[in-house]
């Protein structure tokens, strides 16, 4: 584990949007893998919020990358821009300037519909408060990403059930989120994030709502699954007890890396 920030070494990437299906569309064959091997790369990302009529910079020319299979932690005090950066990396927010490349393809200029499809197919999210759908069972919650991709519900449930069993939740497959403990809910949320083996997993303070033991268990699972699926992971956290799971820790302060 290293505590550092590494700037990107890639040259200017091609300005080609990511297609819905990897390998399809005009971007196919034009990817810049020869230029960069990073799973995710952000270049000179800047973001400001207008607060009280005044523009306030939150991210100030951030350069960042994650390599395939790497687990990077974003640490730092509240208000340092960690979650904003995570949102931009996850295509939930657009940056004011800079470039964002996913597997060498620019994704910062995509339309809203294209961004939604990239999130669906290539990114898994783990939220601080689990964000499970209360009306759905654990199995159905985990099935969502598969069925959004067109998999029949029955087949998706079978796969979701198998994953939940692996995560020690075989007795809670049919349980509603309201009847599960926070640790169990976060394991379900984790299963939902990894079920379709995304290239990138983004986790926002995944242990903040859990006790120490549950937090460790969740991180252990996240570590195992991301290694198994070779997913790259970015974790925003304040919790030093889980730093052991990071390949690299990037500390932020006032919208910049230290």
């Amino acid at each position: 584990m290293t505590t550092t920030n590494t700037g990107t070494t890639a040259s200017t990437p091609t300005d080609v949007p990511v297609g819905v299906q990897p390998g399809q569309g005009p971007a196919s064959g034009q990817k810049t893998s020869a230029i960069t091997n990073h799973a995710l790369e952000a270049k000179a990302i800047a973001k400001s919020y207008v607060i009280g009529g005044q523009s306030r910079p939150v991210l100030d020319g951030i350069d960042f990358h994650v390599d395939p299979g790497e687990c990077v932690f974003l640490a730092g005090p509240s208000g340092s821009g960690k979650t904003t950066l995570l949102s931009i990396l996850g295509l939930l927010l657009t940056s004011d300037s800079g470039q964002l490349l996913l597997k060498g393809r620019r994704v910062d200029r995509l339309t809203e519909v294209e961004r939604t499809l990239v999130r669906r197919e290539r990114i898994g999210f783990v939220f601080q408060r689990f964000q499970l759908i209360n009306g759905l069972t654990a199995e159905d919650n985990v099935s969502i990403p598969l069925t959004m991709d067109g998999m029949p519900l029955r087949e998706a449930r079978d796969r979701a059930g198998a994953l939940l069993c692996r995560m020690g939740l075989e007795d809670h497959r049919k349980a509603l989120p309201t009847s599960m403990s926070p640790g169990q809910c976060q394991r379900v949320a984790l299963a939902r994030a990894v079920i379709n083996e995304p290239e990138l997993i983004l986790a926002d303070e995944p242990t903040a709502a859990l006790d120490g033991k549950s937090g460790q268990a969740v991180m252990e699972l996240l570590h195992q699954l991301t290694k198994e699926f070779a997913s790259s992971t970015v974790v925003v956290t304040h919790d030093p007890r889980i730093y052991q799971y990071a390949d690299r820790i990037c500390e932020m302060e006032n919208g910049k890396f230290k």
Partner: protein
Amino acid sequence: MRWNLAYRTLFHDRGKLIAGLVGVIFSVVLVNIQGGLFFGLVNKASMLVDRSNADIWIGHRGMHNVDFAHPIPERYRYTVAGVEGVAEVQPLKLQFVNMALPGGKYQQVLLVGVAESTNLGRAYSIVDGPQDAINRNDAIILDRCDDDKLDSPQVGELREVNGRRVRVAGKSNGILNFLVTPYVFANYDDAIEIGGSNPDETSYLLVRLAPNADCQRVCRDIRTLLPELDVMTSDQYASLSINHWITRTGLGLSFGAATLLGLLVGLVMVGQTLYAMVLDRVGEYATLRAIGLGERELLSILAFQSALVASIGIAIGMVITIILKTLLSSPKATIEIPLMLYVGCGVLIFAICLFAAGLPYLRVRRIDPHTALQS
């Protein structure tokens, strides 16, 4: 999955589901019962025509309502009888007269004189007294539903109509006038005598067609022979009589407004319920948007939920409507719900519910998936 997500989240919040269903059920019941009362009421305007057993009605030029007849020459019946395709012609006499009540009061009634030897014009059916009551001397037939207005006359009781003694020989049930004036049936000759009318004049000539006769052609032939009279099929005259009351009284407007109000209440309740459900689930929708659910897919979830609420609500509403109709419909306040009203109401409310899904959709569109990370 979208459907699974839609119905599971809908049924998860049973309180809001019930609120939405109540709105739809209320609309369905209100629209159907209002419509049924409307049809029941306006159909009274043509009851005499509908139950006359006649195919063609002939009356004065400009006839517009069955209850307001003007005299026409009775001898024209022979002219009409000679038209090809006419099997039978009978005169029908209508005249407003006064009936003396036991307490010394008077009640205006509409005296209907029907020919003895035929069922043409016999709109009633006897439920109390002999079936041939009308053929007896000085006999009249009243309706049970008018008992309150006529001080509860009994069969066999003597009454005075236009200063002449008559006997209540039988009673019908459910032959009611659109006006408050009760119908009193008598045989044709008695009616002329009671009313003091000119026997050379009558109110209508009723025609029964021979089998396989062309009704429109017979009407045309009669019009050619009697250009000073109006000639209509029974259906035409029934519609004309109904339209007269709907347009002259503004009845259609008032019932229509009440029905519209029912639809509006349903629209607001369904829209408001779905909107409240969305407000409760903004976080969940933001999460779904974050993990890759598109805007159109969210709209389809809302539309499916609306359609589900509408379908269940319409089904329950129809059952309640049928029960209420069975329990509440009476000859005085008839609830007549034609199949087209059931179907039209169902389709309209279903469409309105889908439209109501637009309200929460406007809110869902504004959901920023980024908020999933902030909650």
